[in-house]
């Protein structure tokens, strides 16, 4: 079903040759800080083009997991495979998005987006296209400091897609936004994901967000996956449907039940 969507949108999508996602696997992944084990013997698999949400209480190791997959931190034991090959150093396919947009304040919005575009490409054009995708085409010349929090996250998204990322690592990207902006951003992320077909891991506190966006939800507690479920709902998802609510309740209960 996803395939047909991609083909349909192919006409308006010039960067189609670079679309798609990579698969990610972790094998016996371990990360310790001092004598604290943050990730413990973690085996997980992310299929190409899949959107997996990771939920859990704070301090359960979700953010550390993303840092390991992005290659910013090295695992203490075990390894990560990206598209079949073992990761060493920075992950070339991964783009990380934090709670704050991490834009360079001394570069204009458009320059920030262009920064991520591949070398020897028409960077300005790519950046302008990416900004249009997130609905900020006429803010390109402005400084990031004049944008609102939601707009800044849009720019960060534009930056991620302009680099043709095959794996998007989202570390509570919407955590600091107000409820309305968050809803808007969620549908933007879903739209971009459907268009581009990248793989994505979404770390979030918000169970509703996880159920609304993810193909699969992992629940993490003290460095391990304690519960896993696929989300068998059709997109776009109706947040008021009984199935949606039921799934949300189940996951919430699991989180609160975990000690």
């Amino acid at each position, binding site marked *: 079903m996803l395939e047909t969507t991609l083909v349909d949108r192919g006409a308006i999508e010039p960067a189609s040759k670079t679309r798609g996602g990579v698969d990610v696997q972790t094998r016996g992944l371990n990360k310790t800080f001092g004598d604290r084990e943050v990730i413990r013997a973690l085996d997980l698999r992310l299929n190409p083009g899949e959107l997996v949400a990771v939920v859990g209480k704070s301090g359960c190791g979700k953010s550390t997991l993303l840092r390991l997959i*992005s290659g*910013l931190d090295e695992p203490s034991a075990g390894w990560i495979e990206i598209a079949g090959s073992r990761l060493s150093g*920075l992950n*070339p396919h*991964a*783009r*990380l998005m*934090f709670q*704050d947009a*991490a834009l*360079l*304040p*001394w*570069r204009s919005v458009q320059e920030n987006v262009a*920064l*991520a575009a591949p070398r020897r490409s028409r960077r300005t054009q790519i950046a302008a296209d990416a900004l249009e995708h997130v609905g900020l085409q006429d803010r390109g010349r402005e*400084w*990031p*400091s004049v944008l609102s929090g939601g707009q800044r996250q849009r720019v960060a998204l534009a*930056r991620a897609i302009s*680099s043709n990322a095959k794996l998007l690592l989202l570390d509570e990207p919407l955590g600091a936004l107000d409820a309305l902006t968050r809803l808007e951003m969620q549908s933007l992320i879903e739209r971009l994901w459907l268009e581009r077909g990248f793989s994505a891991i979404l770390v979030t506190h918000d169970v509703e967000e996880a159920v609304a966006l993810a193909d699969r939800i992992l629940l993490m507690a003290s460095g391990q996956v304690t519960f896993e479920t696929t989300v068998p709902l059709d997109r776009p998802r109706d947040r008021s449907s009984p199935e949606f609510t039921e799934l949300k309740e189940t996951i919430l209960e699991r989180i609160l039940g975990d000690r």
Partner: protein
Amino acid sequence: MSAVIHSRSGSRFFREIVPWLLPLVLVIAWQIFTAAGLIPHRVLPSPSEVLEAGFRLTLTGELPLHLWESSQRALAGLLIGGAIGFFFGLLNGLFGPANRVFDSSLQMLRNVPHLAMIPLVIVWFGIGEPAKLFLIVIGVFFPVYVNTVHGIRSTDTRLVEMGRVYGLKPWELLWQVVLPSALPSILVGVRYALGIMWLTLIVAETIACDNGIGYMTMNAREFLQTDVVLLGILLYALLGKLADTITRALERWLLRWNPAYR
């Protein structure tokens, strides 16, 4: 730079004019008091006399010569000292091992007032040009060094990580992320260095010199030309203000992305 708490008020014209009011009032008061004979001429000649001295020395070509010598000296010292300070700041800010090797020694030297080195400097270099340059270089070095290290150290690690994730090479990280982020702090260092630069110049030129504004004033003192002495002092004030204005303009332009400098 706008004040942090008070919002801007008044028209642009008003804001531009206000800082000049106090100096203007002082000069007028000075003129009135001296013209009325309330202050003896020997102690304080009137502003018009100082101005006249300025004209006279400009016509003889003496003033432009001294001004040129002093500015050249100040600028050369600033450039050399600033460049060395920036270099060490960059080195020690970026590389931990370098910092461990150099920083504690530099901090120790920093606490020696550089003007206390004058006797030693005279022994080393005599009273020629290198002595003065050396003093300015040392004086300017430290504020630039300290603020460069601080600026680089306080770069947001988030931004550096973002740059790394997006595949920036080390020199790109330096140019696009670290240096712009350190720039506000570096410019504070430069402004501070400018103050020290003038201070050192004055002292160096009054001690041993045969040109420059400092020499001009010391020479005038011997002949009790109080008007020329005052002219020298006023010139230092104006030059200092000019240098500060230029750096501020530079700040406003380089840091225009930062709402605090708009």
